[in-house]
Each structure stands twice: as C-alpha cells, then as structure tokens.
C-alpha cells in the first residue's frame, strides 16, 4: 500500500509555532512561580523542591516537544486515500492508525493559520458525523486537490447507495 507524506516544511512551521507557545508559557510561569510563590512559601521544604522539580520537568517536556518531536512527528506522519477509505498513520509515543470510510465523511475543511500561511502550508480537516480528523501540513494545492477528489468520491458513493 502506498502512503503519501506531509510536507517537510511542517518541521519548521511546528518548531516556530511551538517556540512561540513555549515563550508565552514561561513568560507567565516564571513570574508566578519565582516572584510570587517562591518568596512567600519557599521556606517550606516540599514546596521548594517540588516546584524546582516541576520546572525542570516542564522545561524538559517543552524543549522535547519544541525541538525534537516535530522531526519525529513529521517522519511518522503518513496518509493514504483509497477508493473507499482514508487511512491516517501518526503519533510518536502512542502510535495511531485511523480508518475513515469515505461514505461517512460529512464535509471537508481547509485551514491555514498565520505560520502555515508563511510556509505555504494548509491542513485538511475531515469531519464525520461524530469526529474530526486532521491531515496537517499539506501544500494548499495538495489540500485543494484532495478535497476535490474526495468530493467526487463522496458524490459517487452516495449514488451507489
């Protein structure tokens, strides 16, 4: 079975997006913890070591998520569109394989945030009656082409039933 890959630009786009959220998070976290809580409750042994531990843990997770995960995530993302189904394979720690029968698709949505726009990327949201699945980081042309193809397929499958 042949799987398509998402765009390589995704790695950069994700890194930039996540760096921004990292900066915002720590801009709030640092003053709250080290200017507010620590001076007042820092004398308590558990609070002091607990908070320092938490900071190290959070920093580790965020750094991993920002600079290492995008590369692996990109490598692991695969999708294939077949005549009766869409298959998505993704995930690093928890691997996911999702199958969406084409006849269940309600509508398709193309989404572009500011960062995706500057990289000429778009994500494709596939909506069924009960859930949403996203294929991230396609080029806009790819996304349009897939949505056209799916539209034709959905119409066909409706004819059959």
């Amino acid at each position, binding site marked *: 079975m042949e799987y398509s890959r998402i765009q390589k630009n995704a790695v950069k786009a994700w890194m930039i997006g996540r760096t921004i959220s990292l900066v915002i998070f720590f801009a709030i976290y640092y003053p709250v913890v080290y200017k507010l809580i620590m001076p007042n409750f820092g004398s308590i042994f558990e609070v002091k070591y607990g908070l320092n531990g938490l900071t190290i843990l959070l920093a580790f997770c965020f750094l991993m998520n920002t600079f290492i995960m995008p590369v692996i995530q990109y490598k692991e993302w695969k999708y294939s569109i077949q005549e009766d189904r869409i298959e998505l394979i993704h995930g690093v720690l928890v691997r996911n394989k*999702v*199958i969406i029968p084409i006849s269940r698709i309600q509508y398709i949505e193309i989404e572009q945030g500011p960062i995706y726009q500057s990289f000429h990327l778009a994500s494709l949201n596939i909506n069924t009656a*009960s859930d949403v699945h996203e294929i991230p980081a396609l080029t806009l042309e790819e996304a349009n082409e897939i949505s056209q193809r799916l539209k034709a397929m959905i119409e066909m499958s*409706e004819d059959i039933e």
Partner: protein
Amino acid sequence: MNNKEELKNHQNISRNSQDIIEEVDEFDEVERNHACKILYLFLRKLMSWIFLIIIVIKNMHSDFGFSAIFFALFIILSFVMFFSMIDWYNQIFYFKDEAIYYKSGLMNIKIREIQFKKVNTVDLSQGILEKAFGLAKIKIDTASLSKDESELSLLLNKEKAIEIRNLILNRKDDETVLEEVSYDCYTLNSSQLMLYALTSNAIAKGIGIIFVAYTFLDDYFLDIFDIKLFDKGHFTIQYLLTKAIWIIGAILVISITLSVLQSFIRYYNFKVYVDKDKLNIRYGLLNEKHYSFARNKIKGIHSKQNLIMQLFHIKTLEIESIGYGDEKGESAILFPICNVDLERKIINDILPEFNFGGCMQVPPKRALIRFIWKKLVFIAILAGIFTYYFSFGFLSVLLFPFALILGYMQFKNTAVGMEKDLLVMSYNGFYKVGTVVKKSAVQSIGKSYTYFQKKRKLANCNVSIFSNQKYKSIQVENLEDQMIDDYLKKVR
C-alpha cells in the same frame, strides 16, 4: 448515506418577515398551544423577574406602605401576563406538505420547518398538572445535534396531541397513546422494579440524597429531631463502634428506601413494545412519558452493569438513538433490568437486527499485565506518600488488592466481535458496558498502541460512533494486534 440526511434534517428558514406573515395568513388552519400554555409562560417569566420583585417589596414597603406595593406588584404581574399572552398568541403551528411548521416571536420571527420523515422521536408526556387538565405535552425531535432542547415542544389537548402524533408517525387509527396497550409488550413487574432499585447503586444514590438534604437542613435537622450523633464525654472505642454501626445502618435503610421510592416513581408501569416499524417506550407514575421512534434510526444498544449487577448477571439495556435520552437526568432506557435470557428475548423480539450470533474475541493472556501495571505503579506512589506523611498511612497498602481486582475485571470484561452488519464491544471494569452497534453507524475506526504494547503485539481499538454526544468514542484496550488489523479492513 443515512446519517447525512439526518444531519441536514431540519431547516430554520429565515425570510423576510413580510413573506412569512403573508404565508401564514394564507393558512386558515393555524393552531396554537392550549391556553394553559399561558400559565406556563407566565410562571417561567415570573421566575426570571422574581428577584426584582423581592427586592422591590423588601426595600419599598416601609416607604410607600402596603397598598402602593400591591398596586405596583399588580401592574408588574399584569405586564408579565400580558407578555405571556402575546407570546402564546404568536406561537403558532400548521401543517403543510408532510411537514410541520412552527412560528414564534413578535419582533424576531422564527419559522421552523420539520419534515415528517426526518422526525426521529415523538414523545408524549403528562405530569400531574397536565393530567388534571386533560392535557399532554408533545415533543418532536429530529436527529439534529445542534440544540440541547427539543426541536418542537407543544402543550395541547390530549386528543389533539395523539392526533398529531399519529399524523407525524403516519398512523391512522391508533388511540393507544397513554391508554392501555393492546400490543405484545414487555413490562416490568414490581419485583423486577424492586431488584432494579436495590442493584442500581441504591446506596450511592441514597447517600447523595441524604447529603443534599443534610447540607440544606444542616444543624436544624439534628436539632428538630433531637438527634445527638455523639454524646460528649465518653469516647470509648466500643461506644464509637456502636454509634458508627447505628449511623451506617440508618443511612443504609434510608438510602435504600429513597432509592426504591425513586425507582418506583420513575419506572412505574414500564412498557416497551413495537408496532409496525415504531418502537414505543412508556413509563412513569407522576410524570408519564411515552416515546415512539423509528426502529431503523436506532444506532446501537448498550447493556450496562455495575458491580452488583455483574455478580448477579443482570443488566440495564439502553439505546443509542438521537433525540432520545438527552433530557437532563434521563437515560435512553430500553429496559431497566433483565437477565441474559430476557435480554436475548427482548432483542430477538423487538430489535432482531441487533442479534449478534458470532463469537466474541477476548484479549490474550499476555494482555493481563497491561491492565494491571499502571494501577500498581500509581498505588505504589500513593502508598509511599501516605506512609511517609501520615501515621496510619501504611493502611493504603489495602489499595493493592483493589487495583488487582479492578485490572482483572477489566481484562475479563474486554471483548470484541464483528459480524456482517454489527460490531460488538465489551469494556470497563466495575461498570461493565456491552455495546452492539450497526457498522453503518461507525464513523471511524482506529487502532493505537504504545511501544510496550507493540512489543507484546497488543493494541487498543477506538471506534467513533454516531450518537447523541458529539465525539463519542469507545476504546477497547489491549486486544490482539493482528485481529484489530482484520477489523480495520472490514469496516467500510
């Protein structure tokens, strides 16, 4: 595809108000809610005004005296009444081309059109008040997920309500609504109802009720009945023990009684029957309910068992169907209590398309450890913290058997099966749920696994189904990897 139609089912048509009014004027047979609806509207409006009224009375009566206050109150009330009447007058409905149209509002006019064939459930209910006036409330629901409330709720004469129901469900001469049923039906006798009350978390429910009552009444409660929980002075262990036993016993007795009462009031005279292609469910003592809905719109059946029910092999059957059971504090009940034989009989008789004849596949033995280890680690950490900080913390070791039992039950309860049109899943530990869904209601199916699961060739199966709640997804854990792959191929 069936689901697609259902989602597009109802249309709110907003047009130029002039057009609407003209169109309505063309119809001579415009109908309204029963005049009693004014009272309902009046009371509802009053509820939102009540604080203002109270504040007015409290602050003004020293300044203006009672007569002025009564006069003001009279004016406010008549205003509310006047607006209720206007509201009532503007809520009209009429029938045209196999559809019901409902128009409401004075300034902001809304017309709602519901096609008969898109109607999923029609629900008739009678509370005490309605019974006294010979009225019935009719609620019409489509499969739309967009609203919390019913698409259409009307208060009408009982006869009129029955007539509309028959019109919508396309039944000519059926007077059975809220009357004695002549069809073959499954009923719930009082011993079954008793069993249901006792097994369905009676104690938890009762304690909940007691707790609420206690927080409301607080100290007065104990004072009024002159109950002293503890005499000050002699705190011997024996004294505390006897007291504890007394209190626990009292709570048990009270909660069981409350639970029994509640079950009897709710499910009194429970009946479920099929006529033609409509499934009918009716129950209730004070608030009589009658649901009827198209059988082919039922997506699945859940059988639910709590711990006690698992011990006695009895189940509660519920339905997955849009528009049923989404009211507050109400579950989409098919049959409150039944054993395995009765379950098979009911499904065979009422919903034969959900009869699963295939064999169920269970997780392999090597999956058992996967159900247990996380709980053990969690409890080990918890026990460590407790033992370190509290003097009796070592007692938390008792949680280990609890974790083991829970994990083992999850392992035992997990199973899946697939047939031509059906998908069967069974999952959860203390609160076991068995789900049978039509494959056509499965919106997406997937598998997920971690590194450790892959090493043991196991994976979780995630199934997302079309239901009342958006994003309803069922996960069955730690199944044979190979088997899930087979399943993924079969869903289309």
